[in-house]
């Protein structure tokens, strides 16, 4: 985590070369840069594999009703605890539900977790870091000190505390996981903002008399986006892991939800007779997390070839 | 060029010819890159004699540092490797020695100092440790004896309060002091050959002069031969007995320093000399003209046909573009690899 942060900061400096002196609308520049950025990221083998896996995941989630042979909660779709066979590729669980169908439907929940949790941390974190970096002075000191304090707690504890307050449910788990990662995004956004604030284009816009909002949203924000894309991509994998963990503990999705962590939690009592109950949801989590890790690492390398992990 | 170059041989018997210490023959060193295999050093030969200072000159990318690392057996493999040729020292070909045998030579009989003293010393180890470890490795001294020797060496390179400074760390020293320490480390086992890779490039001008002075002193007192790698013809003029000029992995000119400065036989050497600020005109800042050679050293994977310097050379003709000029080796004398050596006029200093 620390390492990711340092990398993100390092690449903030290396990511781009805005023409000195002119104050282009940051978004236009960003759009033009994205094409190059994308090609460069996709020249990385890991990133290509990650992208393919992510695409498959999204397609599976979108077409779940057509792909899955049974509804996820149809009890007695088959006998209970059937071994995997043609009709039930991943076997059935203790209620005779088709595990394959449940894993397919679970992809929807996982995508939701990724989007909502990362959405929360990305929005709040970016704004915090951006404002702190832009404002400077006391605002900066207080905000960032607070962020540092929260950061030192580890995401697990913050997520637990949030669930303790909100109560167990999948949506609360998403919110909790999102809140827990805010400090991380804030620190990245903050350090990148500091770099950008000292660039020529920012001074130029400032001299031209751009207002605070214009400076922040038209000039700074688009320029801090590339490193944040890396952080957010890797962030999806930690969010998915964390939310699955909460569900596994019973603090997230509740039965009969086909959320993968919750499926593992419910299946543990039958592990002995029916190991497949435990295998497929776990593999699904792992592939999802792996996909976003590969993609994130690849994009990072594309942004900054010096850093190769 | 009347100045400082030829120092009397440290040898007391003036009759004896300086014997060769290190002979490099047809050295080829390759690097494997994404763009293909590049020969950073391509068939380079030269001889380093007893007690002499031989300057290897060229811009960055000319292969001079790779030459020195090849001699030391320090080419990182992969991606690099010595593809051919020999380096003869003490009757043995260093390119064929195993790692163990090389370790016995490195820092003991052949020592090396580098360009950036600040980054060439380990920031987390004390100066004392970094000095004594080499001494102990090669002499079998105890830690206490090695420390004593280290203090002695620090004194010889004029570091004040050496006993105290032995316990300090690199960040507590200035760049000039660190380069003195690097020299002390290199000289601590009385090597016969010292390879100095741009030893003054990273330093202030006044410190540069001190370091060069120190190296000359050490040569005089120990009789070590020095291979001085530099891109700075000013340093060459001040230090070297003989000069090898390298360009794009090849030796393009070799000769005594007086000859090279008075009558360069390769346009590249001529260019390097022209890039020197003209002495005596330093006062008129605006007036001094630094003549840089246009263009850059070509990429090793993308060398021009014919003479490698042809695309930057004012004298270049169709023959230069078509045929690679051989190195006209006139043994022991001043030679170059150029079709048009005879068309080069002597420098101003030679005519005046």
């Amino acid at each position, binding site marked *: *985590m620390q*390492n990711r942060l340092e990398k993100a900061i390092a690449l903030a400096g290396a990511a781009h070369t805005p023409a000195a002196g002119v104050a282009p609308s940051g978004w236009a520049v960003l759009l033009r840069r994205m094409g190059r950025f994308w090609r460069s990221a996709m020249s990385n083998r890991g990133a290509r594999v990650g992208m393919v896996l992510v695409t498959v995941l999204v397609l599976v989630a979108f077409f779940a009703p057509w792909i899955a042979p049974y509804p996820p909660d149809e009890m007695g779709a088959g006998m209970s605890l059937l071994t995997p066979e043609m009709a039930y590729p991943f076997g059935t669980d203790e209620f005779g539900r088709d595990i394959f169908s449940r894993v397919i439907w679970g992809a929807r929940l996982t995508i939701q977790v990724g989007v909502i949790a990362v959405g929360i941390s990305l929005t709040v974190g970016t704004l915090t870091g951006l404002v702190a970096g832009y404002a400077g002075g006391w605002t900066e000191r207080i905000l960032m000190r607070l962020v540092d304090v929260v950061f030192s707690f580890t995401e697990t504890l913050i997520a637990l505390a949030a669930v*303790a307050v909100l109560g167990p449910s999948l949506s609360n788990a998403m919110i909790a996981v999102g809140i827990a990662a805010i400090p991380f995004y804030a620190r990245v956004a903050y350090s990148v903002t500091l770099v950008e604030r000292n660039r020529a284009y920012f001074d130029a816009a400032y001299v031209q008399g751009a207002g605070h909002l214009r400076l922040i949203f038209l000039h700074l924000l688009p320029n801090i986006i590339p490193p944040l894309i890396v952080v957010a991509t890797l962030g999806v994998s930690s969010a998915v892991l964390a939310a699955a963990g909460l569900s596994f*503990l019973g603090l997230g999705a509740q039965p009969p939800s086909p959320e993968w962590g919750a499926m593992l939690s419910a299946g543990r009592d039958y592990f002995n007779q029916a190991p497949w109950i435990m295998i497929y949801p776990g593999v699904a989590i*792992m592939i999802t997390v792996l996909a976003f890790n590969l993609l994130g690492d690849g994009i990072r390398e594309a942004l900054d070839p010096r850093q190769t*992990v | 060029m009347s100045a400082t170059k030829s120092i009397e041989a440290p040898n007391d018997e003036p009759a004896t010819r300086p014997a060769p210490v290190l002979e490099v023959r047809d050295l080829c060193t390759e690097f494997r890159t994404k763009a293909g295999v590049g020969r950073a050093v391509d068939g380079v030969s030269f001889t380093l004699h007893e007690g002499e200072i031989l300057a290897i000159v060229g811009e960055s990318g000319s292969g001079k540092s790779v030459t020195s690392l090849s001699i030391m057996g320090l080419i990182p493999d992969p991606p690099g490797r010595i593809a051919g040729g020999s380096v003869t020292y003490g009757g043995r070909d260093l390119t064929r020695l195993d790692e163990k045998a090389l*370790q016995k030579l490195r820092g003991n009989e052949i020592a090396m100092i580098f360009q950036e003293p600040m980054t060439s010393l380990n*920031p*987390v180890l004390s100066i004392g440790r970094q000095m004594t470890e080499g001494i102990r490795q090669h002499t079998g001294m105890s830690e206490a004896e090695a420390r004593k020797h280290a203090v002695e060496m620090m004194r010889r390179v004029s570091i004040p309060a050496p006993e105290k400074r032995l316990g300090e760390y690199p960040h507590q020293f200035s760049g000039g002091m660190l380069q003195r320490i690097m020299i002390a480390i290199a000289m601590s086992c009385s090597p016969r050959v010292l390879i100095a890779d741009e030893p003054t490039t990273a330093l202030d001008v006044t410190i540069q002069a001190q370091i060069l002075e120190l190296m000359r002193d050490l040569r005089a007192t120990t009789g070590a031969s020095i291979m001085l790698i530099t891109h700075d013809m000013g340093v060459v003029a001040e230090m070297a007995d003989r000069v090898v000029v390298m360009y794009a992995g090849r030796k393009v000119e070799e000769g005594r320093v007086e000859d090279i400065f008075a009558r360069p036989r390769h346009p590249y050497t001529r260019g390097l000399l022209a890039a020197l600020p003209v002495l005596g005109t330093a006062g008129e800042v605006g007036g001094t003209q630094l003549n840089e050679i246009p263009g850059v050293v070509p990429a090793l994977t993308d060398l021009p046909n014919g003479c490698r310097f042809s695309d930057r050379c004012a004298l270049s003709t169709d023959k230069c573009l078509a045929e690679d000029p051989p190195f006209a080796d006139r043994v022991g004398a001043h030679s170059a690899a150029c079709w048009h050596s005879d068309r080069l006029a002597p420098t101003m200093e030679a005519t005046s």
Partner: protein
Amino acid sequence: MASFLAQRLFAALLTILVTTVAVSMLIHLVPGDPVQIMYAQSQGTTPEQLEEVRARLGLDQPLMVQYIQYMGRVLQGDLGRTIRGDQPVLELLLARLPNTLILATSALVIACAIGLVCGFVAAYRRGTWLDTLLMTSAILGVSMPHFWLGLILLFYFAVHLQWLPVAGSGAANLVLPAVTLGVTNAAIIARLTRSSMIDVFDQEFIRTAYAKGLPRALVLYRHALRAGLVPIVTMIGLQFTYMMGGAIVVENVFGWNGVGRMAIQAIFQRDYPLIQGFILMFAVVVVLVSVLMDLLYAWLDPRIRNR
């Protein structure tokens, strides 16, 4: 160095202070009436009893007063009493804390042993098939949910092979949770060690060390490892924090009797005094570890030590 440590200590104290504020206010963030929620699971609690609890917890006081009262109690070592069973929170937590620390520490030792070696070897053999193999395993390891790995190990070694006990808190019970937590974190350490060591191997002082004629082993051990250790130690400090977080989950997989397992039960039971105590204690442990790491860091890096 004094100023560096003073700065770190200040940050540590601030962290604990902010935690106490957050923890004492935690209960007010709960949507709805916390007292009712707390007692929702107990049958037949009268409104009078609820009022009494409210008064006992000081929830009827102004926030500022509540905080001061809370701090006063905390400073005397009183973290309150649990809702279920009416036991002193601090004692309960302290009784279980050693188990969690043992688990986290053993896992850290395993993670470091595997991660440092693999990362170092991968960096040293950079670009070879060995590097590819190690780093592929590492990214798989990073992507593996540790509760899932735990379940599989549990099934295979405890249930299937019956080599190790399924649950409990003895020495044999420690093996699986420690390995589970250690292996997943080893992957992270291996990746970080590799990139840190690659930076070091490219440094000029490594070339200097070879040029001195030092044998390879000495260059690697004394020069490369010592220089690479500074960032690695920082990272290991952070890892311990993650271990503590991961322990919460892993304890629940293996029934390891630590504070994490207790905390999850407390969350289910809405036992807020216990949850508050747990968070505070966790923060104190994390802060202590990070101060320790700063000391170690300052001692390892002469640039800080001699400032």
